[in-house]
């Protein structure tokens, strides 16, 4: 059993090592002996636009240029011959590059020009031309549009790449990347599923002001992952693991474990769901564990269903791209959160005035100060007790009310209404609380029914994680759909558990603070605690609205 676990761990670590080792296998000339490859690196500073133009010319086109370079006709391309050939070549390149700044054509002048030969295949040379081109521009004011079009080498086969960076300026918009994917035509990425770049136009919007360009960073190569948006390295590692899951039950188990971890990682990554969950749970006082379990369960179920649905959509064809579904899911999720927030708000407003019945023994107060008892972990017992009491009563509410008994009116099923109190015939509970002798104890004012919890869970799970979709599709690709479902459920469980734990931690933290404050009831911080439910409710509404708006703005409807 131990070696078993160790092998599983080793496999996971191996997958991690793969992530590190895989970056970009690149080769010297993957594009064939016919190609002329061109690169233009644009740098926009406040007074000039410079273009670093590079030509990487493969063996045969080099042979075609040989008679033009070798003016002495001695069969070699000498350093001097190369230098004198580079000038006019860069001049031609400068003329072929059409630079437009704020709508005006700006001619590029050659700053430096150099050419050298490098050894190619079959003992033949290849040529590398490097041109520094520059156009002075009037000082930028406000957003300025910059456009570069390379009209050179029309119809030639080869890699055509452009990059753009600001130097003391900020590119507010750019349709080309900052870094070269080929290390300025020195190492071309070799990916079975990608095509040679064919970029001959760059459109930028430039704003004056910004950090100076770090020339070191400018030459760095940014590896571009094989997977699209939302798929991180962890996911790629997992996919590789998945490919081997055929090999035995052990790897299958490891894959399941990996899915749980992946889900946990997804939950820890920054995102809206966590914030809302944290706010929501921090507004709760009671039954947090149980509430967390309900929310977590719903998140898992919704997320699993969502991923499966999206997986089916993605695999069925291109009729409805997942990218188009996401914004709408985001809107739906946001609206759900708003609804939950509004319900919380109503509850908070109704409950907020506080039902303080006095401070003497046998009395209790409906106020937002918790008992020290809860902070000491008696929560769970009281939940259990509560459950036992209410199981037969047909109430829809009290599941989340661990220590205070009241019944919900059927007319207001979703929200517990502290205004309607029923007989308090649970002496045991009262004793329990009074044992702790708190000056006050709380009646939860901003709680929701399970329906509210389910709604928040739905909102959290409605947006399927791209990683999970990829994992699911990977399993389908393996021809093992059931394994895929298991993986997605594992992913959802990992996610839900993490979310619940985060929520509980936030709650515990708050309780700790409250408990400390409660020991000093005269503290000037006490009033703050009173408004917390209101604040959290408002925060949930705002976050939900933001989520819905953001989703709506990317639907393309407006």
């Amino acid at each position, binding site marked *: 059993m131990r070696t078993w676990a160790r092998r599983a761990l080793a496999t996971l670590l191996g997958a991690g090592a793969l992530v590190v080792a895989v970056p970009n296998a690149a080769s010297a000339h993957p594009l064939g002996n016919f190609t002329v490859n061109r690169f233009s690196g644009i740098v926009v500073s406040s007074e000039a636009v410079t273009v670093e133009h590079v030509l990487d010319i493969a063996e*045969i086109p080099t042979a075609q240029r040989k008679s033009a370079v070798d003016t002495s006709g001695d069969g070699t391309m000498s350093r001097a011959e190369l230098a004198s050939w580079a000038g006019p070549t860069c001049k031609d390149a400068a003329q072929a590059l059409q630079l437009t700044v704020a709508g005006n054509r700006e001619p590029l002048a050659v700053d430096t020009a150099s050419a050298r030969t490098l050894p190619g295949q079959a003992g033949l040379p290849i040529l590398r031309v490097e041109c520094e081109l520059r156009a002075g521009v009037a000082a930028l004011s406000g957003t300025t549009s910059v456009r570069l079009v390379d009209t050179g080498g029309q119809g*030639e086969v080869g890699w055509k790449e452009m990059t753009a960076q600001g130097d003391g300026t900020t590119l507010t918009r750019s349709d080309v990347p900052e870094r070269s994917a080929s290390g300025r035509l020195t190492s071309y990425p070799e990916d079975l599923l990608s095509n040679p770049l064919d970029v001959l136009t760059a459109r930028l919007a430039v704003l004056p002001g910004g950090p100076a360009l770090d020339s070191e960073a400018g030459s760095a190569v940014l590896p571009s992952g094989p997977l699209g948006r939302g798929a991180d390295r962890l996911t790629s590692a997992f996919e590789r693991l998945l490919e081997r899951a055929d090999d035995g039950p052990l790897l299958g188990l490891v894959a399941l474990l990996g899915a749980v971890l992946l889900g946990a990682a997804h939950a820890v990554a920054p995102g809206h769901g966590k914030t809302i969950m944290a706010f929501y749970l921090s507004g709760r006082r009671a039954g947090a564990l149980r509430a967390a379990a309900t929310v977590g369960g719903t998140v898992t179920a919704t997320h699993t269903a969502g991923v499966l649905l999206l997986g089916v959509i993605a695999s069925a064809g291109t009729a409805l791209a997942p990218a188009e579904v996401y914004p709408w899911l985001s809107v739906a999720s946001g609206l759900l959160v708003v609804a939950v927030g509004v319900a919380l708000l109503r509850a908070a407003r109704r409950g907020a005035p506080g039902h303080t019945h006095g401070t003497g023994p046998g009395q209790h107060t409906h106020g937002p100060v918790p008992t020290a008892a809860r902070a000491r972990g008696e929560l769970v017992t009281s939940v259990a007790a509560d459950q036992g009491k209410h199981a037969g009563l047909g109430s829809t509410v009290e*599941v989340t009310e661990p220590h205070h008994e009241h019944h919900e009116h059927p007319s207001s099923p979703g929200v517990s209404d502290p205004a309607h109190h029923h007989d308090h015939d649970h002496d045991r509970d009262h004793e329990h609380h009074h044992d702790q002798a708190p000056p006050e104890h709380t009646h939860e004012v901003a709680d929701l029914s399970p329906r509210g919890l389910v709604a928040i869970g739905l909102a959290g799970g409605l947006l399927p994680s791209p990683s999970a979709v990829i994992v699911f599709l990977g399993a389908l690709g393996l021809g093992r759909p059931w394994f895929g479902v298991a993986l997605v459920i594992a992913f959802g469980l990992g996610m839900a558990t993490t979310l619940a734990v985060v929520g509980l931690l936030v709650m515990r933290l708050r309780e700790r603070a409250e408990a400390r404050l409660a020991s000093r009831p005269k503290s000037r911080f006490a009033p703050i605690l009173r408004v917390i439910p209101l604040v959290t409710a408002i925060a949930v509404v705002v976050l939900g609205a933001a989520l819905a708006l953001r989703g709506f703005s990317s639907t393309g409807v407006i």
Partner: protein
Amino acid sequence: MGRLLRPALYGAVALALAVALTFVASITMGDAGDSPTPDRVVNGGGAPSDLGPGAIANPATFIPTLQNRLRRTPRDHRGWSTLVLAYVEQARITGDPTYYAKADKALDRAARLAPEDSVMLTASAALENARHDFRAAVSSADRAIAVNAYSAAANAYRADALTELGRYTEARRAAVRADNLSPGPSTFARLSYAAELRGDLGEATRLMQLSRDASGNSAASFAFAAYHLGELARIQGDLRGAARQYGAALEADPGFLPAYAGRARMAAARRDFSAAEKDYTEVVRRLPLQEYLVELGELYLATDRPELADAQFAVASASASLAKANGVLVDLETAFFEADHGSPAAALDAARAEWDYRQSVFSADALAWALHVNGRDAEALPYARQATRIGTQDARMIFHRGAIEATLGMDAPARTHLRAALAIDNGVAPWREGLTRDLLRSLKSNP
């Protein structure tokens, strides 16, 4: 309902939903995984029943879709096989050999996932054809057909390989079989090529017209057929008709370089050397293939500019050494180039290797001509006869036979063949035309 039951109900609903979705997913995915068989792609990839040239009617748009899908489902072996076909097609259209390397690796993936899959074997045949490994292509296609006898694509690639190997009867049978299974522009084009090799230019033209008319909305497929119609018209002396066809090809697909080369040949036949030079220069700038470099060089020779010709030949020779370095087994063009403008010894080596590998009319011609430039005309004659054995109306081939016969003192057949070469194609190369006329003149003055 008790509140304990409610979460349970939610759970049950969610589970039922999950089960139902998985069921749907497994069905639709199973379907999607099987759908891009070459026949489907071939038949449904834009133009109906399009195989071989245009196996995938529009690889430029098809490839990204396929790449995206394979990113999500990397174990989809049919997907990888289809990608191989698409890459081979893209390499053929763009002339960008990078795609062959990619196709090779994609094929590796497919073969590892499904070593006996008929689509994978068909894709393998396509790639081996592109690599000039025709024997391997025949065996791959045979294996594909053993798995799926109704694969039109496998039969089509088998026909291509057999044609290149000089096994013309079997090739024709395979081409007819592919056509019966799934008639379309590319099967018509294959049958047209078979007719052209037999010297039946009328039938070749008719079939190529069928191919053009069936090309549907595929620009590449249309341009391909129109270009070949232009070539057929030009060989038959109809320069006006040829010009029309090249124009139509370029209108459909302005990037279709063979049509530029065809237009250059036609301009040379009209003695419009500057137009020919312009088109050839554009072709070699974009795609410096050996055959185009040699044609441009020969145009310079015909117009008395030997230095410019030498520059082109130098590039052609670089191209030949690269082919050697890259392990290309056989190379007809190298044999002809070395014989005419390079080293006779190198020409004989290349032609011999070529003939040992395959016994097509073209490799027979190459060996005959290489023996001739090495002064071994007696040995050359049987090969020259082999080259013309099925009646191919190729001016260069017939000129070679006439020249060998002239050297051997066989004046009557020499005269017949040299005149035939001039009649077939007075524009294939003004330089070769000059040689032909010189030879004819020497035959006349030497009764």
